[in-house]
C-alpha cells in the first residue's frame, strides 16, 4: 500500500499584533498555493471581529480554489470563538 503524504504548500505564522494584516497577506498568496496551507496561531491569544472577517474571507477563497486550510496551535479560547461563529468547519486543526 502506498501512503501519500499531504504536501504543505504554504505555512504562515500569525503574530498576535498583526493578525488582520497577516491574514490579508496570506489571502493574497493563496493564488500560488496548491493542495494545502497552514496557519500557525500558536502566538495568538485573542482574535477580534475584523480578524474573524478576514479569516472567513480567507476560508472562502481557499475553498473556491480547493485548498485545504490547516490551523495549527489555536488556543481553546480561539477555537471556541470559531465554533461560535460556525467558522471552525472551514478548517482542519492540529495542535
Amino acid at each position, binding site marked *: 500500500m502506498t501512503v501519500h503524504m499531504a504536501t504543505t504548500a504554504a505555512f504562515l505564522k500569525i503574530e498576535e499584533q498583526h493578525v488582520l494584516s497577516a491574514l490579508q497577506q496570506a489571502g493574497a498568496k493563496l493564488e500560488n498555493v496548491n493542495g494545502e496551507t497552514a496557519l500557525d496561531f500558536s502566538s495568538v491569544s*485573542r482574535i477580534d471581529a475584523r480578524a474573524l472577517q478576514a479569516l472567513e474571507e480567507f476560508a472562502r477563497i481557499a475553498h473556491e480554489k480547493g485548498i485545504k486550510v490547516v490551523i495549527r496551535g489555536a488556543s481553546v479560547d480561539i477555537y471556541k470563538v470559531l465554533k461560535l461563529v460556525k467558522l471552525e468547519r472551514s478548517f482542519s486543526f492540529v495542535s
Partner: protein
Amino acid sequence: MSAIETAPETLKIPLTAESLSPERIAYLEGLVSRARTAAAVFTQFTQEDVDRIVRPMVLAGLEQAQNLARLAVEETRLGVMEDKVIKNMVASEFVYDYVKDKRTVGIIREIPERNLAEIAEPIGVLFSLTPITNPTSTVLFKCIVAIKTRNAVIFSAHPKAWRCCSEAVKIMYETAVKHGAPEGIFSCLESPTLLDNTYLMKHKDIGLIDATGGPGVVKAAYSSGKPALGVGPGNTPVYLEKSADVNTAVVDIIISKTFDNGTICASEQTVVIDDEIYDATLDKFAELGAHICNEEETKLLERTVIDPQTGFMQPMAVGQKATDIARFIGLAAKPNTKLLIAPIRGVGREHPLSVEKLFPVLAVYRAKSVADALKVCIDVNHAGGLGHTAVIFSRNDEVIRKFGEVINAGRIIVNSPGAIGALGAVYNDLVPTFSFGCGTGGGNSTTDNVNIYHYLNIKRLARRTQNHMWFRVPNQIYFNMNAVENLGQFPSRCTIIVTNPAMEQIGHVGIVRRHVCPKTHIHVLVIPDAEPEVKVVRQGVEALNFYKADQIIALGGGSVIDAAKIMKLQYESPDADLEELAAPFLDLRKRVVEYPTEKANRARLIAIATTSGTGSEVTPFAVLTDKERGRKVTLADYSLSPDVAIVDPQFVMSMPKGLTADTGIDCLTHALEAGVSNYASPYTDSSAIQAIQLAFKYLPAAYQNPQDEEARCMMHNAACIAAMAFSNASVGVNHALAHAFGARFRVAHGRANALMLPHVIAYNAAVPTKFMPSPYTQGYVAHRKYASFADLLGLGGDTVEQKVQNLLAAIEKLLDQLEFPRSIAELGISKEEFEKAIPDLVKAAFDDPSWRSNPRMPLMTELVELLWKAYHGRGAGKAAEQARQGGAV
C-alpha cells in the same frame, strides 16, 4: 410595561415573517451576524476587560441622563422630564453599584463546602424589546448589564420611542467600543416592525429574548420557541392598614403614583384603606394636592380614561399629568392637582378603574375589615397584576406577613413607594432593575428583578464528593473464654435476661445470672427460638415497663438478640412506629425516616452471642416478623446496636455440627461481601480480611472437632469481626438471594448463603453488565479484592483471574469439608417447583436492600441465572471459567 403595549391589537403579532422583503431580511441577517461575531469575540474577554468597559458606560449614562430624558419626553410626550433624569441615573449609577464588584466572567462563585463552583457562560446574542414608558432608562440598564455579562444585544425600540432609544444605544455603543468592546456588540433596529420582531424572535442565532412591554410583546416572546424574559404589565394593589403611619403612606403613594406621571408599571393602582382611617387618609391626600373625585367625577373618569370596549386604560392618558387629564375630560380640578383619586366599590369589569392605570389616577376602596381588605387586594392582584408588585403600609407584622402570603407578587413592598421601591436599591435592598419578572402568574419565567444573572448561563462545576464514612460498633466488646465475667462491672437496679428455652435448659442462663452485678434484681424472659414476632416484642416491652428495668441482657443467637434490640427501642421510645422505621432507604444519611432520639426510659443492652455467625451482638440490624400481617420488617439504625457485646466461646462449645457449619459460612459470607462492597473502607477491610482468614483456618476444625476450644474461640471472634465489617460496609447480592431463597423454601440462612456463594463470587469477579453507581469506590475493584483475599490465604496464582479461581476452589473445598449440599437440587426441590418460584424469588431478591452495596448492579435476568446456577450447583469451576472468559476489569 405600559398601556400602549396593552392595546389588544398588539396581541396579533404575526408568527411568520413571510412578508419581509429580501432586502429587509438581508438587513436583519446583517445585524444578527455582526452581533454573533461580537458575542463570539467577547467570550475571550476577562473580568478586568469587561469592568474596564462598564465603568465609562455608566459615566456616559450619567452624563447624558438629562439629554436622554429630554429626548424621551419630547418624542413620547409621556412622563416627567425631571423624573426621567432620575430614572436614567438610577439605571446607570444604582445598577453599577450593584454590578461593579460582582464576578460575571469565569468562576463567579466557589462553594467549597459543597465542592461546587459556578462558572459564567454568556448567552451570546440577545434580542431586546424596550417600552415607550421607560425608553432610555431601560436601554441604559440593558446595555450595562449586557456588557457586564459579555453579551451582544439587538434592540427593537417601541416605534414611538425609537429616536430616544437609538440615541441611548448609540451613546452606550460608542462608549463601549471606545473602551475595548467588540464592534457590533449593540445595534438598534431601524424602523422596527412587528414582522422584524417576529423574524428576530425566531432567529436561530438569538439566544434570549428580553421583552419589556405589554402582554402582546411578552406573549409573542414566549410563543417564539426561544428562551425569553418576558416582563409585562401589573396592577399593584396597596393595602393601607389601620396601624400604618398615614402621613408617610400618603406621601409615599403620591411620590410613587406621580413619579414620571405614573408610567412605572409597579406604581400603585388601587389603595384599599381600612375603614377606621379611610376619611383621615383621603383628607391627607387632599391636603397634599390630590383631588378626591365625587361619584359623578368617578363615573366621568371611568368613561374616559378606560376603554369601555377592552377594559384597558386609554393610551391618550398614559404618562399624562393629572391636571392635563382633568382638563381633557372636563373635570374641574385645582391647577396644582397632583393626583386624581376615585373611590370604587369593587374590582372587575363593572368597576373600570380597578385595572392598571399608568397615569396619576388612583382608585381607593373603603375596607370593612382586614379580611375584606385582603380579599379586595387579591381581586386587584388577579385583575392583571399577578406576579408583579404589591404594596402594604402597616405596623402590624402579622398583617404584613398575611398580605405577603396571599398576594401573588414578585415584589411586595412594605411601607415605601411601590414604583421606586420595586426598582430596587433605593428604598430597600431589592436588586436594581428596569425589568420586573412576574413569575408564572404573569406568564414569565422568573419573579426576580431581572439583572446580570438572568443574562448568564450559570454552569455548575460539580467535583466528585467523597462523603464522610464511618466505622461504628459497640464501644465495649469483651471476648475470649469467660468474657461473661465482665458483666459484673455494669451496675443495674433491675435486669431482664431475654433468652430462649434451650439456654435455660443447658444452664447458660445460670452462668449469666452468676456474673451479673451483685444486688441486681434479675428477671428472665424466655421467648421462642424463632425470628421475633410483634407479639413477643410487645410482651417483652410490658415486662421492661413492669419492672422498670435499666438493663437488658440478650443471651442467644441472632433471633434473641434482635428481639431484645426491638424491645429496647420500644421501651425507650414507646411512640416509635416500627412499620414506619422499617421504611426502605438507599443512603443512611438521606433516609426519610429518623429513629427517635428522645427517650422515655433508658436501658443498657448487653448482647451475649450463643452462635458464631450472625454477629447480631454488634450489628445495627434487627428483623421482626409480623405474623398477623404475614410479613417481615428489617430495622436498621446504629441506635439499635447493643451497648456492650460479650463474645465468650463457652456459650458456643455445645453448638451442633450443622449449626456450626451454617453459622460459620454465614460469617464467611458476611466478610467476603463486606470485603468487596461499594461501602468498603480501609476500616471495614481490615475486619473483613481478618474474619476471612480466621474462618478458613478455624471453621473446618470447629466443625470436625466441636470441642476444639481454640477453633470455637476463633470462629466466635471471626463472626463478631465479620459483623463489624458488614455493619459498616453492608453485604451484597449473595445475601439478597439467600434471603429470598431461604424464606421461600425454609432453608437455614447460612445454608442458603453457601448455595449461592461460589456463583456470586464468580459473578462479581467478571466484567459487570451494569456498574453500580457509587461515590465511595474508585473504579471496579471487586475482582482485585478477591485476588487479594486469595493472596492472604496463600492460595497462589499469578494473575488476578487465577487468584479468583483459586479462591473459588478453596470455597468449594471448604463447603465440601462442611458437608453442605452443593446444589439446590440436592435439597430435594424439584426443577418444576423451583422454576415456578423463580419470578417470586427474583422479585424478593431485587426488593432486598442487601444488594445495594454490591459492587455489580444485578440485572433481574442475572439474578435468574445465578439462581439456576445455584440450583444445578458445583458451579465454581464453571463460574470461574466464565469469569475468565468475561475478562477481569
